[in-house]
């Protein structure tokens, strides 16, 4: 960028504007401003513009920059906050990432099914029940009231309740069956949890045994394949060796034999040379 020549007084005006002019120079310049209308106009314009510049606000809070030691930065890296995942992705991750979670859930369902767990909607409330479903009220028996039997649900509107079966009469059962208390429910949960843990342990043992079996079979097959490959390879090497040198070896052996025969006075047979044979084959 080129700096155009400027009236030196203008540069001094800026110095005066920001109080950077020595006292004597300032006094002289102020006298000039008083006497020169053009210079005064520039001075006033500069002052007015500078005053207006104060209106440029910058309220943005600056970020803070902190330099960390190497070990601090390393530990900070480990404290990376994972971004929040949508619940669908989280659920998918749980299901896909942990086979144990799926197995446990399946076992819970299985245990509940074995115990004939069911949820009964009753008078606006929910009742959790175990055991066989109650027999429907026989049509021959008189229905005393259309109102629901048993403890009114208004008293415990949404508390889980349970009946353990055992009584043949569903009406009496409904009337006399105590609701499952929280303690009982927790005891039962504990039992279910123990069962699940036992099943999981058993499942783990079985899985380990299966894996060990699979590995043994796989190892055996691999060893057999390895032996077979070794034999194949050896056979191929032998074939190649024979293909390369076998012919000469056999011819050499024959010549030696015939030479020995000749030494013993036997007439040598007329044998074709290899070249003749080859040519004959080509023809």
């Amino acid at each position, binding site marked *: 960028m080129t700096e155009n020549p400027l009236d030196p007084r203008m540069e001094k005006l*800026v*110095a005066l504007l*920001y109080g950077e002019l020595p006292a004597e120079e300032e006094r002289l310049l102020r006298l000039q401003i008083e006497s020169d209308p053009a210079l005064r106009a520039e001075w006033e314009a*500069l002052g007015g*513009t500078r*005053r207006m510049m104060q209106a440029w606000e910058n309220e943005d809070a600056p970020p803070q*920059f902190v330099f960390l030691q190497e070990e601090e930065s390393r530990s900070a890296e480990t404290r990376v906050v994972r971004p929040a995942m949508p619940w669908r992705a989280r659920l998918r991750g749980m299901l896909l990432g942990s086979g144990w979670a799926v197995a446990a859930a399946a076992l819970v369902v299985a245990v509940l099914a074995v115990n004939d767990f069911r949820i009964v909607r009753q008078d606006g409330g929910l009742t959790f029940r175990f055991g066989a479903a109650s027999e429907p009220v026989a049509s021959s028996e008189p229905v005393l009231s259309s109102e629901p039997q048993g403890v009114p649900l208004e008293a415990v509107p949404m508390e889980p309740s349970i009946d353990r079966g055992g009584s043949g009469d569903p009406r009496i059962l409904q009337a006399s069956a105590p609701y499952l208390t929280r303690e009982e429910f927790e005891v039962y949960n504990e039992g279910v949890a123990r069962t699940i843990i036992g099943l999981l342990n058993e499942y783990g043992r079985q899985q380990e045994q299966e894996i060990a079996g699979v590995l043994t079979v796989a190892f055996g097959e691999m060893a057999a394949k390895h032996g077979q490959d070794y034999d194949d390879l050896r056979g191929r090497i032998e074939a190649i060796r024979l293909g390369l040198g076998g012919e000469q070896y056999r011819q050499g052996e024959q010549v030696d034999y015939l030479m020995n025969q000749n030494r013993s006075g036997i007439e040598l047979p007329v044998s074709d040379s290899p070249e003749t044979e080859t040519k004959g084959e080509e023809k």
Partner: protein
Amino acid sequence: MDSLSDEQLVALTQEGNLHAFNRLTARWEASLFRFALRLVGNREDARDVCQDALMKAYLNIQKLREGSKFKSWTHHIVLNLCRDRFRSAGARAETQSFEEDGIQETRVAMTRARKEGIEQKAEKVGLSRLLEDVMGKLPIEQRSAILLREYHGFTSEEIAEIVGVPAATVRTRIFYGLRSVRRMLTERGIEVPMHS
């Protein structure tokens, strides 16, 4: 450590004391960030520039002979990084061709003002936004000189050290810059008062 001067903190940093550098950073990060923000015009870029500048400062702290000039030095780094950004992005291509006599820039400003509608523009944005807009159209040399003098308390001599030109040139840039601001504001319908 808060009571230590820049010079002392720089000396400690040069001896490997990272906490001393953090004190320097805490002391000047606001000024650096606001300078970068006013140069580049957006918070994200300003933050990146500051981060890069502080990293450069830390890595090159051994080269700083006069610790008392840490503030000028880091502002110089910020200015250079902003220049690099403008160069690489070509973001200021239209304003880089401005001549300092103000003829061309006035023409451009008048064209813009006609298009946008002076009165609507003046009503729509506050004076602060308008100043930001006008300052953004100045060449970076004028803009940085005005910013450093007006908002960051550097003297013309200090700015001269930062930008590497004589102090008289700095004052000349400030003069032309302020005159251009006045002209552009007037073109946008803002009456700039005379002040004696």
